[in-house]
């Protein structure tokens, strides 16, 4: 079972809550995907006020764990402030830490990210950092107190799928005991299956589900792909080879010819 900061979760899918056609569709997508965690942006949905009102109430009523995020923050201090506000609003120490370096590309600013992670961990937060696939940044985040890493596999919202699978493989090998969640860049269920086959522990999705023609159906499709990828990883997959390998002996041929 997936364990994140001492919480056991039966689903390996984390779902974002932005940009659905309506809260009703969002709610249905959460149900059909079986997601155990939803992330919600404080800055975007509150427009500076601290209430968020009815929408946050709808999120609470989904009955799943809430992982507030700091989407839209561009500096450590901004992110720390938003995280504290999130703790008040949702009564949780969990925070998905996003510190964006570039408004346009949405690349994480890893320097500010590590700094914010250090401050927040010291203040008792359980930090889920949205980071790149850089190993050294990963190490520094762990040193700062993070016990989960959430690397991208492509830019946010790009739907491009794993752009650099070997970097993801290296990261898995470098941090064998740390829960790794692919956050950002997934477009279709097969992408999710690929990263799960690489041994990743979970995936986080938003646009790929929210902007699908039928978000609840897409949520379910992803859930199935994630299960398939995880099961395949545990089952042990064949390594690819250049030659055909007949599954029955070829009669009349020398075996090593």
């Amino acid at each position, binding site marked *: 079972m997936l364990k994140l900061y001492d919480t056991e979760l039966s689903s390996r899918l984390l779902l974002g809550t932005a940009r659905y*056609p*309506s*809260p*009703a*569709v969002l*709610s249905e997508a959460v149900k059909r995907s079986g997601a155990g965690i939803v992330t919600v942006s404080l800055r*975007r*949905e*509150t*427009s*500076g*006020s601290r*209430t*968020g*009102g*009815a*929408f*946050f109430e*709808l999120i609470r009523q989904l009955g799943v764990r809430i992982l507030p995020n700091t989407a*839209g923050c561009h500096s450590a201090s901004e992110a720390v402030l938003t995280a504290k506000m999130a703790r008040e609003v949702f009564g949780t120490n969990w925070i998905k830490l996003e510190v964006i370096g570039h408004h346009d590309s949405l690349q994480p600013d890893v320097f500010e990210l590590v700094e914010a992670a250090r401050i927040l961990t010291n203040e008792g937060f359980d930090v889920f950092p949205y980071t790149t696939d850089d190993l050294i940044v990963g190490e520094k985040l762990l040193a700062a107190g993070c016990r989960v890493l959430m690397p991208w596999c492509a830019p946010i*919202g790009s*739907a491009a799928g794993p752009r650099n699978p070997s970097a993801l493989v290296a990261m898995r090998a470098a941090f064998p005991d740390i829960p790794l969640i692919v956050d950002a860049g997934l477009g279709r269920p097969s992408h999710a299956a690929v990263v799960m086959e690489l041994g990743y522990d979970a995936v986080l999705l938003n*646009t790929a589900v929210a*902007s699908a*023609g039928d978000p609840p159906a897409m949520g379910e499709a992803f859930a199935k792909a994630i299960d398939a990828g995880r099961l395949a990883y545990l089952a042990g997959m064949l390594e690819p080879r250049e030659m055909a390998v007949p599954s029955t002996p070829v009669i009349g041929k020398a075996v090593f010819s």
Partner: protein
Amino acid sequence: MSLFLVKGAGVAGLSVAYELLRRGEDVDIVDYQDTIGQGASFFAGGMLAPYCEREAAEDIVLTLGLDAADWWDRAVPGAVVRNGTLVVAQPRDLADLTRFASRTNGHAWLGRNEIADLEPSLSGRFDKALFFENEAHLDPRRALTGLAKAIRNLGGLFHLGWGPPPKKNYTAVLDCTGPAAIPHIPGLRGVRGEMLYLETGEVSLSRPVRMLHPRHPIYVVPRDDNRFMVGATMIETDDDGPISARSLMELLNAAYALHPAFGEARVVETGVGIRPAFDDNVPRVVETGEGLAIAGMHRHGFLLAPAMAKKAAGRFSNGFALQEGMTA
């Protein structure tokens, strides 16, 4: 003949008042504002674009919205401009245009030359666009002024501004108070919308232009006098404070990307309205203790007010009874 009280002089209230008057009923309209249409209606885009809205809205929004342009044309002759809608995207967001096309009907793909023919101001700026020929738009402020005039001509009485409500024996009350109804109607929430008006003589558009973007889609609706309404954000809060710097920046950025001349335009107005919505973002006619409410218009006020007004007015002509327990 029965006497009805309509609370709220926005697009929903005026539409249902007009429908009731047309059916031969008497109507009083009250609003605490001194003039009509001062709520979210004042900041509306006025796009009668059921095909485009279908991209992210339930199918019912399309079917209920199809007759909106004809209704407004009848109620306020000359208010409706039937020039369609143009949908464009920056080159790197072309995937969004393809996606938009796959989610909608009633459009045709245009190339560079056809875009230039339709909107000379956008000549050379986009390689591809979607054209929704059968859509229309109107100027919400003018349309509501025209509708109020039609209501007065039909005998409807306005009671505007603070003051004691008229004490008469009303058959029923129609609550069309928009966001003010949020505390009273279960399931309603507020969705904040921010917009601005730009003024420039350097750009000329004949129809609403939507520019797709993964995070900040915008629309620009041309008005008279070189004005352009640029909208609109959708933020899940009922905070109606002034537009945020971020939203202002995003709307202006997007307008500038649509046409650089907007960079030289004057920002003549910014506005914030709260759109009441149910959790499926589809409006409803709901029963209240004293009659009916038209609630949850979300971002579809001018598009769906005609259908909701007909639905509510139709309830009364079919023999209204409070105890029936009706929700549309």
